[in-house]
């Protein structure tokens, strides 16, 4: 793994004011590092703040607290030129391939827009670049002048990927890029994403709720629960030892593709509900569902601590 740090998030938070209800702490003190060339998997259930975090990183939201630095500089301190450069280097792919393409633009327009905005590949070279991108994602030249509605979900996702790749970014934030697709198509898209990483040396922040998928593609995995990272570890290490009870419950839910072993798989069933994310009190946010919950968990919010080298967990009982 290369050592160059791309992103450094320091206790980033993003809160939303909810009318007549209070404050929703969608992202609440997240600290992460993303290295060049790696895939950081970000897993968590619906509503845990994964997407908000991704959106904050591409500057669709401004974080309320903490700091996001890109190559050592605060992303909100850029001047215009640096800002454009940041927008060039950090791209995003969305979950819903039906909503992420302008229905009135042909594929060529959608892919070339980034090139126009960032003034890359002028004139005839731009057309060539679009064609090259289409080839890279497994589409062909005839597709350039078609509209998004003429494609299947998987093809549309390929277009979305080509659009993100067009401006030669350093990192792509993949916001559940395959969860809207059929399983067979999922595999194709995941393979495409991984192949592109090998060929171009991209970094990914791969947001997903699919645990078996994230295991396959990630170098490191961050587990998120109610706006906070509860465990962060190299992929292999996480699947071998997990220290946070939430991670254990999640991993126990992965089916095993061997019927004999599958029969013996023990599932940790979580009881209780996800607490209302609005106006969360102090203490550990997982305590209402945690089998290990104790008095201490009510009083003190556990911080991420390094259990073994490179493996962090936020639980009072982790060791």
């Amino acid at each position, binding site marked *: 793994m290369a050592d160059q740090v791309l992103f450094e998030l320091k206790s980033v938070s993003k809160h939303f004011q909810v009318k007549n209800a209070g404050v929703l702490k969608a992202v609440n003190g997240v600290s992460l590092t993303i290295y060049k060339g790696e895939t950081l998997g970000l897993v968590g259930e619906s509503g845990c703040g994964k997407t908000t975090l991704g*959106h904050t990183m*591409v*500057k*669709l939201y401004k974080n309320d607290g903490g700091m996001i630095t890109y190559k050592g500089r605060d992303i909100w301190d850029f001047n215009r030129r640096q*800002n*454009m450069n*940041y*927008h*060039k280097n*950090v*791209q*995003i792919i*969305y*979950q*819903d391939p039906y*909503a*992420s*393409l*302008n*229905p*009135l*633009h042909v594929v060529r327009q*959608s892919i070339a*827009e*980034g090139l126009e*905005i*960032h003034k890359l590949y002028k004139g005839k070279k731009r057309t060539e670049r679009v064609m090259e991108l289409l080839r890279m994602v497994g589409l062909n030249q005839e597709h350039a002048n078609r*509209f998004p*509605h003429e494609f299947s979900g998987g093809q549309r996702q390929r277009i*979305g990927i080509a*659009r993100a790749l067009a*401006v030669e970014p350093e990192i792509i934030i993949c916001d559940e890029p395959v969860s809207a697709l059929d399983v067979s198509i999922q595999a194709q898209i995941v393979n495409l994403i991984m192949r592109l990483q090998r060929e171009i040396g991209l970094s990914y922040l791969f947001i997903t709720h699919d645990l078996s998928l994230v295991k396959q593609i990630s170098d490191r995995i961050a587990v998120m629960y109610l706006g906070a990272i509860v465990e962060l570890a190299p992929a292999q290490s996480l699947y071998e030892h997990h220290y946070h009870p939430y991670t254990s419950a999640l991993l126990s839910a992965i089916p095993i593709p061997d019927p004999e072993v599958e029969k013996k798989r023990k599932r940790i069933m979580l009881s209780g509900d996800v607490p209302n994310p609005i106006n969360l009190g102090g203490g550990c946010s997982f305590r209402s569902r945690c089998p290990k919950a104790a008095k201490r968990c009510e009083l003190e919010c556990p911080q991420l601590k390094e259990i073994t080298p490179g493996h962090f967990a936020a639980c009072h009982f982790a060791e």
Partner: protein
Amino acid sequence: MLRYALKRIGIALLTIFALTTITFFLLHLLPGDPFLNIKVPVAIQEKQMAYYGLDKPILQQYFIYLKNLLTGNLGTSLKYVGRNVTDIIADFFPVSAALGLIALFFAELIGMTFGILSAQFKNRWPDYLLMFFAILGIALPSMVIGPLIRYFFGVELRLLPVSGWGTPEQIIMPAFVLGLATVAANTRMMRACMLAVTTQDYIKTAQAKGLTPTQIVMRHELKNSLVPMLAGIGPAVASVMMGSFVVEKIFVIPGLGKHFVNAVTTLDYPLIMSLTIFYGTILVTMNLLVDLLYGVVDPRIRLD
């Protein structure tokens, strides 16, 4: 596309035929007749009726009317003695159409611009201000706003002529009054359309890519918002071209608007029939044009 157009033209003709028939019989259901007048002897009234063929059985009149219509003969007015209905329309329609189209053009342009601005400043003071005026524009009828601005700009400030038709200055006030409600309605609708588009992922992508808000509006939001806006334009064009009784009355404009009202109160059968059919034809044509335009603006809509 061609097949679709032909099919739609067929339907349009049927619509106009139905319109003709229904209007014809409804008209003759109205009590009284065009020549009813206590000062005129009954024998003369009967002679007048016979002269225009109004003494014949109603069905026979209907078929005579259809036959004339098909040969392009719209009949003569019962009230404007000796005047052809075709001539009346030819005289007054261009005035109404010119005024109406000018008013509508600016109303659409300004309304959409306001709508875009309003959406850009959603829930901030420019939005509230524009929405306040939009509500005002919808709520104030032309018979209130017309005399008011006519008094203010025409009499007090003496900036614009109070009435008449022919010079560009004479167009400004009536066009404003005529277009005000459209501006207001368009502002609100465009705002809603823009906001519906704004939440789409491809807008977020554009933002993440570094497009400025202006670029996002011009490249992505505008065209996507126009699709629903188109639906309103067809009927608006037709209605505005027919002239407005109130506006033409206030500003003394020789348009078609007054004839719609006068022809009914005087039971001028041929004139009412012709105006209705004329309006219907334009309305149907405009709607057809708009539907064909959909296919051009939005590739997802297949015309077949």
